């Protein structure tokens, strides 16, 4: 595994723990289909949360949150529908969240969770 994939993997793990700690119930992780991958699928109250996790090793190239472009958000919306169809379930609300993580050394991350980005 390449260094960036290691970072991504541990970032996703940290994000999942963070989300569970903040009261979300995780349904699915790394769900793949022909159109792409959803990092984390979770439930908060009555809402389905499709969550994109973005990890960075530093702020040299800007905040990880900035890397979630308009096109990426559109893809996440599409993937959310695909996930719902694939599992045959319905939710009152579907939401896209982004979790940005910046590696701070010694295994720790600063975590920022933005709800409802589009």
């Amino acid at each position: 595994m390449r260094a960036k994939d290691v970072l991504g993997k541990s970032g996703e793990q940290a994000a999942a723990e963070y989300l569970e700690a903040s009261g979300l119930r995780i349904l699915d992780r790394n769900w793949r289909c022909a159109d792409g991958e959803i990092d984390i699928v979770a439930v908060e109250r009555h809402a389905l949360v499709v969550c994109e996790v973005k990890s960075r090793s530093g702020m040299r190239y800007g905040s990880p949150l900035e890397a979630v472009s308009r096109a990426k958000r559109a893809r996440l919306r599409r993937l959310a529908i695909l996930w719902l169809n694939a599992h045959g379930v319905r939710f009152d609300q579907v939401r896209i969240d982004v979790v940005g993580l910046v590696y701070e050394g010694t295994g720790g991350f600063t975590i920022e969770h933005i709800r409802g980005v589009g």
Partner: protein
Amino acid sequence: MALARTYSVALIGITGHVVEVEADIANGLPAMIMVGLPDTALREARDRIRAAIVNSGEKWPPHKITVGLSPASLPKRGSWFDLSIAVGILAAAGQVPRAALDGAMFFGELGLDGRLRPVRGVLPAVAAAAERGFRRVMVAEANAAEAALVPDVQVVAASTLAAALDWLCGTPGLRGGRPAAECKGRDLLGEILPDGPDTSDQAVPASSRRGLPGTAAPVTAAAPDLAELLGQSLARRGAEVCAAGGHHLSLLGPPGAGKTMLAERIPTILPKLDRAAALEVTSIHSVAGTLPEQVPLLTDPPFLAPHHTATKAAIVGGGSGIIRPGSASLAHRGVLFLDEAPEFARDVLDALRQPLEAGEVVVARSGVTARFPARFTLILAANPCPCARAAGPAEGCSCSPAMRRRYLGRISGPLLDRVDVKIELEPVGRTELLNDRNFAESSRAVALRVLQARERAAHRLRGTPWRLNAEVPGSELRRTWPPAPGSLRVVERSLERGQISARGVVKVIRVAWTVADLAGRPRPTRDDCAMALGLWLGVRR
């Protein structure tokens, strides 16, 4: 999450409108959205400001930033909101204390490296800010002297965004670079300008006063002088009348007779601008970007001589995007000289009729109407025929009368009807040149007479909005200031004969007042009216 407010000014013409810049930082993916009718240059501010903030060593807030410019319906153009937006964002992010923004205005374009660049139109903008109760403005260093012309406003000059932030945070020198400093306006206005027209040193002609105290004076050795125009005593007299009363002048004559020479010497007999006029003229030139950098106050009446290929937009103002003043406005309170007037496009000449009548130019665009003052003295110069050889019978001009008529016909009747003094210059012979040497007065002597005549008119017109005889409306003229009884008989006879229109009569009375003012008479006499009529009709010798 956080909201901060700063203020700037949007200029429409030379009128400033206060614009509130709100910066809101909210949770969300990092982005910056700008609302409130920005144009392209302003929309690009997003990238400029971000680079400037980061390169000044500040943190760019990684959140969703919304910048609103209100009133939202007013179109905002240009790059000079950069500083106010940058400061607003940093204040919203808590990097600048909000209290430092109270009652302050910000003008300036940011470079990507955080440098603060000067912008055009600072004087009218600061004046508008002062009018609305703002007591502090922050500008680029190159704009500071101009901003300091406005009284009762603290001007802070900064060279970079970092210096500006240091000043606002009260930590001078912390972020490096030359610290921002308060610019004490050398009270240019008080120093060199009298309040009203009653100061003795005004008698010095404008040309020899170019050098201001404390600045490197340009060489004035070869300053033009009215006395050089030998053999044209009537033309010199006409120029004097026009300078004294603000009347429009047309000069007709063969090449070499001295039309251009005369027109170029008219600024030397005009008195200096007074305080209000100087600020007005400087404001217009500030918007046009034609101010000298060192001494940003124009005190001499402007002299504009556009080339005859000039377009309508160049003369009356316009242009795409930002509406710029044209030559007519730049010549406000001065002289607009159209050399070779028949060569100008007809629509350009006719576009001048409105400013001649109203004293201002109105440029209408979708959403905005810009007004520029344009109260200038028009001077037209023309050759009598297209071949320009009609100097005398020996010269062999082959133009037919029809050709000549057509040539001069390019200056439309309605335009010529607004010209009060028409002078026909004859070619000068050798004897006249030699003889006139003893009679030609220097610009200095004539300027003194012009100044005294203007003072007399201003004294008579005190309490009215007008200062020059040419500005007084006809109705007011006939009611309040009629010439001496019986003195108008010669003018009335002309009217009966159809030589002159009713409007012409009013124009003649105005010029007659100026002639009387120049001679120091309390009211125009019969001779003054006859002289004015002669000037109006264009005396043929």
